[in-house]
């Protein structure tokens, strides 16, 4: 490969092109040769990273954990968004559904997001199970939209909120960001919906690379990435689109619950 860093990202929305073209221009201007390739799903992106077709992959937590496992823990984690740290999922209920505790979910309709969405499906169900909810006694109402995008589009979470609003579900699982942003935007009727339960925190996306990534690429990437500033007009536009205030160093402990959840569901742990 050349000295140009090739980054993989998944095209879950047209804005992804704007984001990475902006970051590409900024990286190149700041002295870090950079380009990107878009994938239609995280499974293909993970395989391409493992095959050495791209240097770095901008991965969801599910993709990150798969890369870690496929490399025997040797893969490099390079950075994450501030918003990726301490993510939570919410179990939101209709106030008129008669659900006052997690045990009351038994016999009720629980709307959940795509089966590859960490925040709207995998971890909320994992934590409910851990909290003693027998999921076999809950009517799961799945919204399996945008499979392969790992919940990035947020479509399935909005579907969950709609199902709650129109009464086709009694409870639903969504990420905390969608929940507060929809409230702040005035899209949630606070007289009808409330939070029953907030899961323990977990971490979200990560820049992953193979251990064979050259030191110069690694250092250039990290240097340019962490030099982005919220009060710089060019950077701010990109940071807002990507949903963060500042880039943070990597950490692994926020993925332990996901690793445990995947161990319980081997089908999800496998790639593809």
């Amino acid at each position, binding site marked *: 490969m050349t000295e140009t860093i090739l980054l993989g990202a998944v095209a879950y929305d047209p804005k992804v092109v704007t984001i990475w073209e902006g970051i590409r221009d900024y990286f190149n201007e700041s002295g870090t040769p950079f380009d990107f390739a878009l994938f239609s799903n995280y499974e293909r992106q993970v395989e391409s990273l493992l095959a050495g077709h791209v240097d770095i992959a901008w991965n969801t937590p599910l993709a990150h954990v798969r890369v870690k496992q496929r490399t025997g823990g040797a893969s490099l984690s390079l950075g994450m968004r*501030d*918003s990726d740290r*301490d993510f*939570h999922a*919410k179990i939101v209920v209709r106030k008129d559904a008669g659900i006052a505790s997690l045990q009351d979910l038994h016999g009720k309709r629980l709307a959940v997001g795509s089966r590859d969405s960490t925040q709207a499906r995998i971890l909320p169900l994992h934590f409910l199970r851990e909290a003693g909810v027998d999921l076999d006694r809950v009517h799961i109402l799945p919204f399996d939209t945008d499979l392969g995008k790992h919940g990035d589009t947020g479509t399935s979470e909005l579907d969950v909120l709609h199902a709650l609003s129109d009464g086709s579900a009694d409870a639903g699982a969504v990420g*905390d*960001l969608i*929940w*507060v*942003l*929809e*409230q*702040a935007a*005035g899209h*949630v009727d*606070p*007289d009808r919906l*409330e*939070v029953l339960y*907030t899961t323990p925190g977990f971490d979200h996306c990560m820049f992953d690379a193979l251990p064979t990534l050259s030191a110069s690429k690694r250092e250039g990437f990290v240097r340019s990435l962490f030099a982005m500033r*919220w*009060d*710089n*007009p060019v950077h*701010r*536009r990109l940071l807002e689109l990507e949903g963060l*205030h500042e880039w943070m160093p990597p950490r692994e402990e926020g993925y332990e619950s996901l690793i445990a959840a995947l161990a319980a569901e081997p089908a999800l742990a496998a790639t593809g």
Partner: protein
Amino acid sequence: MTAGAIAVDGGDLPLGGGLLSLVRPALTLLEPDGVLAVLSRSSSVAEDLASWCRAERHEYLGAEAAGDRMTRHLVRRGRFSVHRPAVPVDPHLPERADASTGFAPNGSVVEPGGPRYPFDLVERDRVTAPEVAELYEQAVAAQWSAARDIPWSTIPRHEAALELAVRQVMTFLAENELSALYVPSRFIARLHPAYVGVAMFLATQMQDESRHIDVFLRRAHATGSPPAISSASTSRSLHSLLEIDNFTEASFLLSVLGEGTFLDLLAFVERFAPDEATAELARRARIDEARHVHFGLSHVRHALAHDGTLYPRLEAAVRHRAATLAGIGGVPAPVQDALTIYAAGASDPRRVARGHEAFRELLATMHEGRIRRLRSAGFTAEQAAAISDLHTPNFM
């Protein structure tokens, strides 16, 4: 008040039911790391406020019972949201405007991270005039209507030669006023909004010019004939105004010299008007033009007081403009002839002689007026005479 710790009473409001409208403004009053106490009776706030804090990079510190079924939630303000310091606003215009404040009104709290705007007129002393606010008020109060305020029905059937002269004079006035409409428009888009008072005055000037164009063309068309000749030398003169990039030079050439000269021309048009409507439109236009001249003089005097190198630059701008008209002896022939017949009031030779004399007097009056205004701007008598001579063939 910039507070280290403040409190808001959120009552029963849930986060998505109005609580944020109390929390967010309160946070803007705090410095980063300042603590906000949110008193609430809503059971959902603990869950939702913590998540909201994470999304906005504030820190949710926890909750404690506060009596009367109230819970006190504590939030430490992060460093990414806007800080609204409660300090008195500086009433003075900034000496140099910041390109990244864009259209934010003076004194407002400008959140960092906005784009840079392309305004390039960003120095106070190169754009403003001390009397601009007063002139703007006068302009707003003095607006009039071309349709309502001119007694159009009083225009009689004049002798053909005289009516042709009127149409020629009106054609000339209209094309000059068109240039006076377009020239300021080129600068408004470049003027930093910190000096919006100047842009607002220029907007009144453009409204005035629009109305003048309207009345001059209505008068030209009054007897059903089309406007008369637009000469190449007038066109070249006005074209040279449109080419000026520097605001003070444009203000000097257009408002001080050009519109200043027009004050005398419009007084002439009023004095020798063949009918009441023509006299009235000239009178009203002249009052508006006097305001524009006043602004131009006020600005140029202010700019000269702050930059001594401006005198030779302004003189050079006049010389440069005169050079584009080299070879043209004076006022374009159709205009000169029309003004002569206009002042004569008829084509009878004896009256034409008087008209010709009036035209010569007009040129002298214009020259004296320009010298007076140039002296008032701060030029020496010698400079003033030289500049006025160079301006002669332009009128505007």
